């Protein structure tokens, strides 16, 4: 019986990993990553590794996706700021790219 559960969990984990990789938008990817971390933790429990499952839940499901979301928020603002800066030529210092190339980027 437990063999079936373990086999199913491994297939689900592999499927979730594929979804994580195929999600191009990083903000949504963070949510799928959290689901993937949970699936990985469940597979570890099925593989009789409770310690590793506990640390995977703490890291893979909670901490890393939170950091990814915050990093995405900061990256999006930086990209928006540089586009605004380049488009409007508003000489706003700060997070616009250091290099002063004026060409409109594709």
């Amino acid at each position, binding site marked *: 019986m437990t063999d079936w559960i373990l086999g199913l969990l491994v297939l689900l984990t592999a499927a979730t990993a594929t979804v994580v990789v195929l999600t191009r*938008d990083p*903000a949504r990817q*963070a949510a799928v990553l959290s689901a993937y971390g949970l699936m990985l933790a469940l597979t570890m429990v099925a593989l009789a*590794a*409770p*310690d*590793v*499952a*506990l*640390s995977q839940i*703490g*890291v893979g499901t*909670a*901490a890393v996706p*939170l*950091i990814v*979301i*915050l*990093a*995405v*928020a*900061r990256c*999006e*603002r930086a990209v*928006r*700021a540089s586009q605004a800066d380049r488009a409007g030529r508003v000489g*706003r*210092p*700060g*997070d616009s790219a250091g290099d002063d190339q004026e060409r409109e980027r594709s």
Partner: protein
Amino acid sequence: MRRRLPLVLGAVGAVALAVVGVRAFLGLPGAGEVPHPYAARAVAAAYAHTTPNAVVSVTLDQRGFDTLGEEFVLLAAAIGTVLLLRRLAEEAHEDRPHDYGPEDVFEAVRLVGALLLPAALLVGGYVVLHGHLSPGGGFQGGTVLASGLYLAYLAADYRTLERLGPPGVLDTAEGVGALGYAAVGFAGLIGGSAYLANDLPHGVWNSLLSAGTVPVLNVAIGLEVGAAFVLVVAKFLEQALLVPREDGDDGGDRDATAGEGEH
């Protein structure tokens, strides 16, 4: 062609690796017959040092030197992240996150946060201290402690988080945790046997104060991991919250949730 070069390189490489990998994996024995001489010795050694949790015995007692390296990987990554996300002089004009007034958090959320915080800290402490008896340990407990402090941010605001865990104190706590681990190692060396030797009394089976240095190392790791994760998340929070003062409401992403970037 240049645009598709990485995909082509990766595809050819992946196919070749898969073919060689499958041929190699056929050489692996099935599940039952994989030889585990090391595992048998490890279980015997765990019993010798009265550590019911064989995994933590391997991690902290038998292969403690690996975990010493692992803790310093975490320390290097945490202080590296703080170094990389430090705010430079020219960014000083940006709004400091804790200048925000108390967030208008729903009372219910604030209540739940206030209730859950002590619970999270209690569970984290329990997991750290009982690492050698039941699944858990320094690292797992540390992440639970850290998630407790994220609660403080979600339920209240950034200033509460900074009051609960000011960066200076967290940095020091992290360094002290890592130093504690290395010091326990030196204690073994000075005690005449070897570095990271488990010379403390091993106590009674399944009792809290058993397995010699394992609980001590668990506490050191719990301190370091808890401080490291809170510090790293706080640094990322600070980066995500910085909003240039002039246009103030730049797309309304003042709160920590990801801005609704229009892709």
